[in-house]
């Protein structure tokens, strides 16, 4: 059930698996993973016969494997793992194997609704992506930083277009890397390309380096007019299709949009920018001074500064911007719309913003116990382990998926 509206949103606690004791024949299990709707808990397991399998809601898969790794739930609740049988790799999805076999596979990704699964693969020393079991036709010397578009219709990755002899400086600096979209490489080659990202209409933007010293953004293979001494990852404005990327000028960082400066380069750092869905808000993590990080929203800088700021999230309609701060991995705090929530935590996870932006939930940990902060207040119980919370589509309820004493359960709680 990929539509969250159809999930069980009845308030209360529902035990999914009373005990995570090992089933017969299982020697040990890895870390548990839970489906987005919280109805399924799964883990990879080592069997007595020295093979691996998956255990889903307490029941082992029928298939077992020489190796299994990269366990992931798709948004529609299917459990996947990259598995090896007879020295060949494939993807297992809910105990069913893709027919395609490769020399290696990694990097499982899903479309927003979960209907499309993409992975990277290597076969015979050539590299490509495989989408719903269909491999790219063109393969490459190397491939990394793969991306699947949210609608699942396109894939992109940085690819190496020519082979390189050892220590061949000229060849490398002439440009052997590019971006391939659905297996078709851009015409242009660069020294480097990084972080290809999708916008509307399957436009792809990426960071590129055109010489050892010149960085810019390439969109569908075409460069921005300006070169910079450095850039970071571009992102698309979902409403306008414009592209924003942090750029470095004169030793300081600012923000450019479609090649034009929109935030003056005054920052010691500026990265992880994100737009709201309506395109009204552009927020980024910035450092106005050396060693002092905070968040800038549409160029306006929040007042509280911390040694580290991470996990910036922008609400869909732009009503809410949230991020985490820490003192070098200690004393984590949650910041929402320029205000710092009370309390510090040993660890905090990416904030989750409700669809209308009026609520924020954050998984936190202190003294080895985990809980969820809802609008700054801890949920009234803590847990051995808790997973990322999910808001109901109407934003009135929160799904908490948690474990205590070996039991896995889901709790739906109304949000005031």
């Amino acid at each position: 059930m990929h539509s969250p509206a159809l999930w069980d949103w009845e308030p209360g606690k529902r035990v999914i698996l009373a005990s995570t004791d090992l089933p017969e024949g299982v020697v040990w299990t890895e870390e548990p993973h839970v489906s987005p709707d919280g109805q399924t808990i799964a883990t990879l397991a080592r069997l007595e016969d020295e093979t691996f399998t998956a255990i889903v809601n307490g029941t082992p898969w029928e298939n077992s494997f020489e190796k299994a790794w990269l366990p992931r739930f798709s948004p529609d609740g299917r459990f996947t793992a990259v598995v090896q049988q007879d020295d060949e790799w494939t993807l297992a999805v809910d105990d069913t194997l893709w027919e395609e076999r490769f020399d290696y596979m990694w990097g499982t990704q899903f479309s927003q609704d979960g209907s499309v699964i993409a992975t990277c693969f290597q076969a015979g020393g050539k590299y490509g992506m495989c989408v719903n079991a269909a491999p790219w036709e063109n393969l490459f010397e190397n491939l990394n930083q793969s991306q699947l578009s949210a609608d699942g219709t396109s894939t992109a990755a940085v690819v190496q277009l020519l082979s390189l002899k050892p220590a061949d400086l000229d060849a490398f600096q002439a440009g052997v890397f590019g971006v391939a979209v659905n297996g078709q490489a851009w015409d242009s080659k660069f020294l480097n390309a990084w972080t290809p990202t999708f916008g509307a209409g399957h436009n792809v933007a990426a960071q590129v380096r055109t010489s050892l010293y010149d960085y810019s953004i390439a969109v569908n293979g075409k460069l921005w007019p300006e070169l910079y001494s450095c850039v970071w990852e571009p992102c698309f404005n979902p409403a306008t299709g414009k592209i924003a990327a942090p750029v470095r000028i004169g030793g300081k960082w600012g923000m450019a949009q479609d090649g034009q400066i929109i935030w003056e380069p005054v920052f010691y750092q500026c990265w992880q920018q994100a737009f709201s869905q309506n395109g009204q808000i552009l927020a980024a993590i910035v450092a106005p001074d050396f060693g002092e990080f905070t968040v800038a929203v549409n160029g306006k800088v929040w007042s509280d500064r911390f040694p580290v700021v991470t996990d910036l999230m922008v609400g869909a309609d732009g009503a809410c911007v949230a991020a985490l701060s820490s003192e070098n991995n200690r004393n984590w705090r949650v910041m929402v719309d320029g205000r710092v929530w009370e309390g510090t935590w040993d660890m905090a996870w990416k904030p989750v913003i409700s669809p209308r932006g009026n609520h924020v939930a954050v998984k936190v940990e202190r003294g080895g116990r985990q809980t969820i902060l809802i609008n700054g207040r801890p949920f009234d119980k803590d847990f051995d382990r808790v997973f990322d919370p999910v808001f109901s589509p109407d934003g009135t309820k929160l799904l908490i998926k948690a474990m205590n004493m070996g039991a896995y359960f889901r709790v739906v709680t109304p949000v005031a």
Partner: protein
Amino acid sequence: MGIHDRLIEDVGLRRGVSRLTPEKIEKTVNAVLKNETGARLKVYSETCMRCGMCATACHYAQSHPDDPSYTPAGKVRQTLDVLLDKGGKVEPDFIYGMAQLAYTECNLCRRCVHYCPIGIDTGYIMTVIRRICHKLGVTPQYIQDTAHSHSATFNQMWVKDDEWADTLQWQEEEAREEFPNMRIPLDKEGADIYYSVIAPEPKFRTQLIYQAAAIMHAAGVDWTMPAEPGWDNSDMCMFTGDFEMMGRLKRRHFESAQKLKVKRIVMGECGHAFRSIYDVGNRWDGWMWHPIPVVHSIEFFWELMRDGKIKLAKKYPGPVTVHDPCNVVRGRGLHEKLRELVRFLIDGDIVEMASHGEHNICCTAGGGVINCGPPFKNVRVAGSKSKAEELKATGVKTIVAPCHNCHGGLEDTVHAYHLGMEIKFLGDIIYECMEKPEA
């Protein structure tokens, strides 16, 4: 006397110099000096009293006692002094020598710091020279290729994404023969320890990953390794002068650990990588400290020993001598913990070299020098004569050296000067001597 009397042919340097014009040099030199340096360099160059006290600090100078062009101040005289005096108006041939000197005759070990009353940091000055050389495109071939690899793969040995994960799984499988329940946990969110290595480990020295995994397993540590790039903490871009790329590498490394919500980063026995994430690359990214605490293996193993998590089945036969890697000793003060750990591990004495602790002599491989490759091997080995003499004087057969580059350098030194010594990582000794569960 000087670098121009001992030029060595290198593809990268020659290629770079062949594309230079005096105009380009002048423009580039002055742009770096004006835009990227400030009071620090200005004061250093103005107040160095040319007292010559630093002359005997440097192992290159010690190994060439009659040649002042190897002294720290002598190196500055041949490089920065000339650029400043001539306002950057120098010939391409001058740049060749300047680059060769800065990349292959200074290990950035900072031993000269202990000799300068004014507190001049010659390592920093040489770093500025390297930055200028990078900007001019005049860098030795092999280290530049490594920098290219960093930019394309985020590791220094062109290790591809599949090769990394595959290698870890292969090592895990191998190790299960010895430890049936062994795991190398990939991408384990919330682990206490994020273990990071340098690319030569998956490429050539997989036994080091095996040993680390065995030690983690035996000590019952909650640890993980990332499945995706970010796992390589090394940084030759820091040494070529490509600071933009250095910042990119460090960002990737720290973000990879942040994403996994780990408590600390523990890194393998490497020196320069520690420097790059501890107080160099992180600063370029704007972090005053490291956003996630970074712990070198020396300290990590020391903790395991202190907490009784490693138990020894036997002790390693001594006596041994201890080589202090500059980047974690002068760079992090770990020499005492290193010795406490070595005393715990060995049966016998530590016979100290004449220069040890913070006053250690560099292995002559550091600072990217060994990464400049075969053309410069002889220079490097000749520069380690004084190290060889100190090693020989200990009379022992074993050197404990907790750093990859130091190993590479010391191996060449031991071989060239017929020292007949074996060189051990801490991990080698711990793995060999520890009690092995399930074994």
